[in-house]
């Protein structure tokens, strides 16, 4: 683990990050993105020098635990209204490309 943050990012790393991010990245931009992310990560590396032994991570500024709402039914937004923003609709459903079959899909 100790060395992971000092290693330089490779083009393969950038393509992997882009894939995990679900962002299609043209070959021509890989080098630019690598330079920019490396520069930012180089700055962020300052964190490695910070003594954090035994410090409890703080994910949120407020101490809120399991706030419960009233168990009462409420109205919801009409489907027709929500579908107005959908880029492709068939009947009252969101339309997506074929997911299963012919060896393709997700």
């Amino acid at each position, binding site marked *: 683990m100790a060395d992971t943050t000092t290693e330089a990012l490779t083009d393969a790393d950038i393509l992997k990050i882009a894939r995990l991010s679900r962002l299609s990245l043209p070959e021509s931009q890989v080098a630019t993105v690598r330079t920019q992310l490396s520069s930012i990560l180089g700055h962020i590396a300052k964190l490695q020098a910070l003594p954090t032994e035994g*410090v409890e991570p703080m994910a949120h500024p407020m101490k809120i635990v399991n706030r419960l709402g009233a168990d009462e039914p409420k109205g919801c937004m009409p489907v027709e209204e929500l579908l107005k923003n959908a880029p492709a609709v068939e009947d009252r459903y969101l339309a997506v490309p*074929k997911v299963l079959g012919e060896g393709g899909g997700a």
Partner: protein
Amino acid sequence: MSHDAPAPVRPLRDICADVRRGHTSARSRVDGFLATIAAKDGEIHAFNEVHADAARARADAIDAMVKSGRDPGPLAGAVIAVKDNIVMSVGKTTCSSKMLANYRSPFDATVIDRLAAAGAIFIGKTNLDEFAMGSSTENSAFGATRNPWDTSRVPGGSSGGSAAAVAARFCDAALGSDTGGSIRQPASLCGCVGFKPTYGRVSRYGLVAFGSSLDQIGPFAHSVEDAALVYDAMAGRDESDSTSADAPREPLAAKVREPLAKLRVGVPREYRSEANAPAVAAVLEQSIAAARAFGAEIVDIDLPLTDIGISTYYVIAPAEASSNLARYDGIRYGHRAKLEAGEDLEDLYSKSRAEGFGPEVQRRIMLGTYVLSSGYYDAYYKRALQARRLIKDEFDRAFAKCDVILGPTSPVPAFPFGGKKDPLSMYLCDVYTVNTNIAGIPGISINGGFADEGGKRLPVGIQLQAPAFAEETLLRAAAMFERA
């Protein structure tokens, strides 16, 4: 257009009192602002969309209420611009992104409902750095906003449109969102008041999520009192936002004119950095002298973790953003790419997101994805959360010695367009503002003085920070600096 000596603006509470008494019509106020916008916003580009018809109709309704003897509320006739990442059922909510270029919200944000119930009128949606990611408003998919003080310079960001709209007198006040300085920094660069309340004070319901543990809505205004008036009307617990705070709260607008006795003003050594522009350093020293003159005690304090804030923030905020922005998949709403033969659902996601998001948003999604990915999580994300705890603890210790912390809002005044092309150099502008969000405490920027750059006067802000939920101390102290 330049603002060499802007005329003073009447207090908003007096304006609203006139509307409530029928001495001024809300309609005439809206028409006046619309005329100013029509004349000048072509140059400034503060607005993504002006809601002229809706604003006029709303003004007529308020005037009709007054005529029939009903009180529209404490913000009667107040004309407010809204950052375009806060949803409204009128018009579009674009986040200045191609991704949401045609998005129409089916509901209003809680802040919109509450301000409307107090009598406010909404005049339009303001420009921002795409999804609130940036410090110059240059990252908008619809073109940059120009600083009203010098149109060759940026207004700051990400709420640059809201700051410019107030500075250009396009409205009485505006709403922004602040994840790492996005209200305070543009307020500093545009010479207005920008107030970020304590995390949880104002409901985030209807604010398009960026960094959910950091985001907070707040007002831009011409004065601390005006900002308090808007804040009073929108703050408080909201059932629709589970992170909104239950903390006790009293209306503050009526109190901000009362000075605080024995105010202790902490000045961190680290905020008197050599990296500050000369004018910023000079304005800070003038403000310290002014505080002494109005009877405050100046306390030298240390915040040695100031410098680690940027590193901490640029792990946590992109991590949260990469998760929040996963919802833009080209399926339910937002931009959808056209597929070629043989392309599948994965291609639909990746192409829609690559086409819909601009370069800075993509950069932050990738950065966030990286720091959360297997093998790097402990080294980056967990360590940033530990740094977050240390930064909060450091503020807690500092506030044992002082009531408010004074410093610059931004290390530099407004910079020229294209002046910070390297992403990291832009991030470093946030050095004095990110830790406020990391700790979840309130902060405010007010004008502290001016810089002279190439014959133009550029505003320079000062920032005050206070402990969580100490908005009353913060705003009363800010008003003392404002009067000094």
